[in-house]
């Protein structure tokens, strides 16, 4: 069964008299446990595709299903629940909550899910250690570097053990060593726990880790290759 099914997705933006193609008749089948890179120039529609699959943005036309459930037909509350329990997001800008510490940011999703304090603490300690932030748990985002904030954002995305991770430039601001370590970690999650990864990136090093590389230009898929 496909993890994600996208059929004829269209999303257009009006900019003055011009129509910008965010998504132009995009159709994709993504199997559960895939490790996929989306690449393409800026404005090619990578982020728009991730946002539409995650229910953050609406489509003009087309259908998206995750595990057979039509995402494009869900209401606000159902979409929130979908994101809360089944999808982990890593955003282009780290998007941490500034009034919460690194640990609290990581635990936030679990808190909203209703995970108990002991379990939360255990999971957040483990994941913060794994992303190399041990000893920085109580720091607020403003006290962390860009790379450290990105790692907190990654930890937050995967700590609640989602089945799908949508990552927009997850390695931006990371040095090579940190990037390698993070990709190893993602790959391990993908292999061991069958977590599906869909990552938008410009980074050639990241693309080398992917099983499948999808290239987008002007909102359309121009290349879809299994590596």
């Amino acid at each position, binding site marked *: 069964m496909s993890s994600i099914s996208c059929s004829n997705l269209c999303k257009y933006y009006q900019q003055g008299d011009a129509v910008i193609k965010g998504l132009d008749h995009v159709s994709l089948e993504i199997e559960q446990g895939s490790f996929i890179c989306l690449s393409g120039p800026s404005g090619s529609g990578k982020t728009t595709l991730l946002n539409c699959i995650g229910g953050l943005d609406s489509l003009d036309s087309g259908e998206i299903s995750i595990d057979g459930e039509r995402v494009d037909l869900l209401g*606000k509350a159902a979409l*929130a629940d*979908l994101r809360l329990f089944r999808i982990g997001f890593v955003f282009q800008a780290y*998007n941490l909550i500034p009034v919460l510490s690194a640990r609290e940011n990581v635990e936030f999703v679990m808190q909203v899910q209703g995970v108990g304090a002991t379990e939360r603490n255990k999971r957040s300690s483990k994941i913060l250690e794994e992303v190399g932030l041990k000893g920085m748990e109580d720091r607020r985002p403003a006290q962390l570097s860009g790379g450290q904030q990105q790692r907190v954002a990654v930890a937050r995305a995967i700590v609640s053990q989602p089945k799908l991770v949508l990552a927009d430039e997850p390695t931006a601001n990371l040095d090579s060593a940190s990037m390698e370590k993070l990709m190893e970690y993602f790959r391990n999650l993908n292999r061991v726990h069958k977590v599906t990864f869909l990552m938008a990136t410009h980074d050639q090093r990241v693309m080398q880790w992917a099983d499948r590389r999808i290239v987008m230009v002007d909102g359309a898929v121009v290349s879809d290759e299994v590596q």
Partner: protein
Amino acid sequence: MVLPLKPVSVLAWRNLWRNYRRTLIMLLAITLGVWAMIFMTSLLRGMVDDMVRQGIAALPGHVQVHAAAYRDDPSVTHSLPAPGNQLLAVLNGGQVAAWSSRVRVPAMISSEYENRGVTLLGVDPEGELALGFKDSDIVEGRFLNASDDRGIVIGRKLLQRLETRLGKRVVLMSQDPDNTIADGGFRIAGVFKAELESREEGYVYAGRDVVQAMLGIGSDVSEIAVLGQDYQAPETLTATIRDVVTEDLEVLSWLELDPYLATMMRVMNGFVLVWMVVIFLALSFGLVNTLMMAVFERVREIGLMQALGMRPAAIVYQILVESLMLLALGLVAGNLLAIGTVMPLKDGIDVSAVSQGLEMMGASSVLYPVLLWPDLLLANIVVIVLGMMTSLLPAWRASQYRPVEALSRT
């Protein structure tokens, strides 16, 4: 799914202090608003309470019994007999705190220099003291010793007007039931003070037996004044007395005897509520502005929380909790400030500078703030309920952002 109370509450509390200057200014505004609601209400309550107290003291009593025509023509011709056994049983029963029968007629008092029109009260001193006249109100001399005391007690102001002094003789003149002049000479035995100058100038106390003898009315009296247990609810006592007197007598509570005061008391609760709501309306603009600013500044975060799976209802809840925390802090500070300013004033505020104006309203020159717990509760409820209602708009706005648009805000 249940609302994530704890993380949302933690976020709300921390967000409150992100812009602490703005929060402190808003807190100050809420504190002052709550203080104004409670403090001004206590002054208003005190003034109305004083007006009612003065009004009842002037009547006196919570219930009065008269001859039916007495109120239209308060002359000696409209007297009533001393209370019979049935009435006495009620008057000496548990519903009554004190009572006294009095002669009350218009009269003229003359000193060697001046004369004035007054209300002559023929009283039983013991009953009068029980009805509320205080020994401490006597500023010179003494109060009457007994119903057959031949002295009189006049007000401080009247003493000045008559250009006389304690111990001097004055002449009191009125009409007997045959409409002929009835007069008598009296020595001034005491001088009383009152919180209203009009009482000091307009009332003269003499022994009841002496006045009855002067007017030739035997044991008849003008009125029976009865003090119940609660001035706010005299209706039951009025009905009980009405049941045991003859139909030619009129039994009226102070609410009927002084409808102006009764109306004042009745509209007071409504007025307090209106006053509190008006203050809150002024306050609400600041509250809405603060919350709107807080929401606009955090659009991106609100989008993030939605993207992470927080439902719109939880976003509304978070903004409301933030508002509730702000209101609760303001309420605590406002209540403490109000109690802290009312309590030291419990011995009264001297407002003699505007005493003439107050006297026209029937209030005295010392204002005693009255802090009622229901008023305190009402102020708190008004602030919380209207505050939450006011916060719904910014909270709803926050919940309606589309995550993708909110996240793209800088």
